């Protein structure tokens, strides 16, 4: 067997003549393929708005390597990850194999021989074929036998996509044809290296006794059948689900190069024709490309908290509805028939679907081809809030309160300094003699529960000898609620004036206990010329503990599970500091199944802190998460966001869990800090 690979090769075109037909059929196939691609892509160019040129090519290419080749996000679902990886890598290998044959036979470069031939063309491709067949079988079984929920189509009144099954059946057919051809070839042509293609060899043993003429004829039939199938597959590719093999990688390349979610686009209100997205042509070409990259895998839907509690939003269905709107009405719209389509917002996409979103970003985080449903929702909300003025009454009240008194808590009846009475905090406008400016945030200023967290934070910072100043009554809302609700105009006004205010105060460093404020001040205000050093209170406390400036002695605390807030986790990529603080405090820590970047939203974002989300017989998002926390056996649910605090306290109440207390990480830490501070050196007690 291993007598060197000398002379190892195989015959191409065994009993195949009229090979010119191959080129003719290929040309036809490629023409159909090209036309299909053109038809799809021209809508992106002709309808979509332009974007700045794609920058940072190496960052983008690295993303393509991680996501497409290494399948990073696919493997979050173990079975599906390996299944799809097997399909993709096998197909790539097999295509490479076909290319090798073409180079060898049509270009006359004799590469298909020797060790390369044995190891790659025979062994590797045999396994590739077998894995491909197995993976396709698994895929079909998941969809049609085990009925895995995530992949089932669930748009009411919309027929299932035939290309779901056809894509897999096509591949199975091609693999079968391939193995059949190899088996017949091996049966008719004894090959000393037959064992290098084990599966083909086994098959060939089955048909070994057949007469030569039968083998030749069947080979010819199967060969041309295989050619037509393969070329048909190529031609069909842009017309069905298989388009994703091209649009997916391009979408990953063209997507957001940064690791964090994209900041919503600011609007130039002096030069504006429309506010937000109300037509498919208001999206950028990249948004439209997103639509054609979707394979309806359902990972976004599975991760979506709104979908989980039964709200009329599925990010996947949103994308598919937009895609169908584009495909159905796009050509007419591109030809200039402006009224050819139904209303994008209101008819194609229901208002309720748009308002159900909590802006948690899980959909953006999960998508293996980096489709972004969330910014599309934000932009369509802008149309509803600023043009149509069709938004829930409680949101209107919150926005009016923002306009009137620079905070969204209508009915709060207080002032921003109530929480700090007796703490003697200096005003940042009066003095420059302080270490950090504490941006309190509207919730901590007006909500009784969050006021306690603010006081705990000040106590901790004082224990660490950090001097803190505040803006006092002059502190306005960071504007995040307005932007998330779609009122970009109000946000623009608030952001600009806040940037001016902070630039006049010139704080060295800003600390905030609210991740939404953190995101606004530290990240989004850059759009308005604001460049501030903003840190979350858990990060600051972590630094202080690490430097020994805040003394902590581990105390005997109850078991804690930590809930990652969306705006600290997915939006700011901060997961470690809060956990280190809990550990330093001495509390045994247990993780929920959905934690870190997979954290399940508390349900308070996207304006939902101002919506009364209830439905009889259904558990709301916050209750779902509270139950998840309770199931860990923890006695304390630690949070680091005022919205999470409110929502999860309500959630725990709804779940009827009397044994679970919701506390901020600062409050957990304070127990140990106070414990440490109370260690008497003198015996003055």
């Amino acid at each position, binding site marked *: 067997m291993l007598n060197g690979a000398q002379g190892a090769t195989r015959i191409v075109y065994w009993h195949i003549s009229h090979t010119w037909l191959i080129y003719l059929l290929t040309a036809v196939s490629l023409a159909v393929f090209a036309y299909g691609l053109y038809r799809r892509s021209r809508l992106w160019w002709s309808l979509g708005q332009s974007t700045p040129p794609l920058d940072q090519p190496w960052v983008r290419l690295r993303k393509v390597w991680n996501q497409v080749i290494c399948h990073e996000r696919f493997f979050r679902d173990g079975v599906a990850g390996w299944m799809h990886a097997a399909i993709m890598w096998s197909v790539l290998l097999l295509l490479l194999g076909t290319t090798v044959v073409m180079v060898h036979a049509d270009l006359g470069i004799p590469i298909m021989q020797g060790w390369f031939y044995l190891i790659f063309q025979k062994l590797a491709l045999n396994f590739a074929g077998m894995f491909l067949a197995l993976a396709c079988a698994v895929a079909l079984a998941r969809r049609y036998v085990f009925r895995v929920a995530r992949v089932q189509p669930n748009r009411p009144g919309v027929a299932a996509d035939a290309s779901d099954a056809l894509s897999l059946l096509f591949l199975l057919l091609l693999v079968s044809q391939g193995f059949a051809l190899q088996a017949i070839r091996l049966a008719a042509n004894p090959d000393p290296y037959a064992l290098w293609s084990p599966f083909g060899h086994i098959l060939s043993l089955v048909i070994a006794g057949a007469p030569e003429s039968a083998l030749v004829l069947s080979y010819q039939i199967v060969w041309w059948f295989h050619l037509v199938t393969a070329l048909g597959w190529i031609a069909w590719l842009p017309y069905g689900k298989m388009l994703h093999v091209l649009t997916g990688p391009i979408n990953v390349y063209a997507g957001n190069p940064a690791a964090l979610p994209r900041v919503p686009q600011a609007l130039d209100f002096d030069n*504006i024709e429309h506010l937000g997205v109300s037509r498919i042509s208001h999206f950028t070409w990249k948004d439209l490309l997103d639509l054609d990259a979707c394979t309806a895998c359902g990972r976004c839907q599975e991760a979506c908290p709104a979908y989980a509690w039964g709200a009329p939003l599925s990010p996947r269905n949103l994308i598919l509805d937009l895609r169908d709107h584009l495909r159905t009405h796009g050509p007419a719209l591109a030809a200039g028939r402006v009224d050819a389509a139904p209303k994008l917002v209101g008819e194609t996409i229901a208002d309720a679907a748009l308002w159900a979103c909590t802006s948690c970003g899980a959909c953006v985080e999960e998508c293996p081809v980096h489709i972004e449903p969330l910014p599309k929702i934000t932009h369509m909300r802008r149309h509803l809030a600023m*043009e149509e003025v069709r938004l829930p009454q409680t949101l209107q009240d919150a926005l009016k309160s923002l306009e009137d008194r620079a905070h969204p808590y209508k009915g709060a009846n207080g002032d921003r300094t109530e929480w700090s009475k007796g703490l003697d905090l200096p005003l940042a406008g009066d003095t420059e003699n302080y270490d950090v400016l504490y941006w309190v945030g509207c919730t901590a200023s007006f909500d009784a529960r969050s006021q306690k967290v603010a006081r705990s934070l000040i106590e901790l910072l004082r224990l660490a000898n950090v001097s803190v100043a505040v803006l006092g009554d002059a502190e306005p809302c960071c504007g995040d609620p307005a932007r998330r609700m779609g009122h970009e105009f109000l946000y623009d006004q608030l952001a600009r004036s806040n940037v001016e205010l902070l630039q006049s105060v010139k704080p060295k460093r800003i600390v905030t206990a609210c991740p939404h404020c953190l995101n606004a001040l530290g990240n989004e205000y850059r759009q308005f010329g604001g460049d501030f050093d903003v840190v979350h209170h858990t990060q600051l406390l972590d630094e202080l503990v690490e430097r020994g400036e805040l003394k902590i002695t581990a105390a005997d605390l109850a078991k804690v599970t930590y809930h990652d807030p969306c705006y600290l986790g997915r939006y700011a990529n901060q997961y470690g500091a809060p956990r280190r603080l809990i550990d330093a405090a001495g509390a045994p820590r247990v993780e929920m199944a959905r934690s870190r970047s997979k954290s399940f939203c508390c349900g308070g974002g996207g304006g939902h802190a101002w919506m009364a989300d209830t439905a009889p017989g259904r558990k709301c998002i916050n209750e779902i998460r509270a139950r998840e926390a309770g199931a860990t056996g923890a006695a304390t649910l630690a949070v680091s966001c005022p919205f999470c605090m409110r929502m999860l306290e309500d959630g725990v109440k709804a779940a009827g869990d009397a044994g679970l207390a919701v506390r901020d990480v600062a409050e957990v830490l304070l127990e140990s800090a106070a414990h440490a501070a109370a260690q008497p050196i003198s015996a003055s007690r």
Partner: protein
Amino acid sequence: MVCQKLAVLFKVVPDPEGVFKIDASDGVPGKDLPQIPSVFDENAVEAGVLIKEATHCKVTVLCVGQAGAEPMLRRTLAMGADEAILIEADTAWDSLGAARLLAAALRQLGGFDVVLCGREAADTGSGLVGPYVAQALGMSFLTLAQDIKLVKDGLEVKRPCDNGHDVFICRPPVLLTVTAEANRARMPSVMKMLKVKNSPIRRLRLDPPPPLPGPAKARVLGRSTPSFVGQCSFLGGASVAEKAAALAQALRAERGI
């Protein structure tokens, strides 16, 4: 109903949700609070715009106040008012002073079929301005309009009565004071806000009105802000059962049961 000219009286007040302090130098409350539209006047603007949508009349918003009221007056333009006029004067906390200026302004501008205002200002809460203005101009008026509908002869108005509501027909020229139940003031679209961004707010100069006739004199002796520091006796122990027992005992004592 035929209506060609409609006026809305509009006041800007210190935010009633704020914490009120009396200024030591001039005794004026709430000087440091944000200025916002008086809520019932927003209902009045909305009622005016609804009438405009049915009758195509011209809606003029009148405000006695300071220049800081301009953005809020622009907002009423974005809601649908045609014109906004500012009479620059300081009549804060002086309902009668404001009423006399508004009456003079309306007389000067002349010819209004319907005048609308909130049932009372969100700060002073006197309910004086609407009725005073109407009577000064010789217009009929009705207070506490909680529902306004257009009918052939005029406006069909519902107002509360003891334990129910009354229905009236009001023929122009008429002044109505509007309650919060009458409507929900619309949020203007940003497109409209952008359109009125540079709209001019007309200034009206008025001669100061003559002193009030009659011998009676009224003046404010002083204002204060009460502090609500209670003496609440918190009942019960650690558990719900203990608290319930203590509370039941207290309630029984109070109810004599």
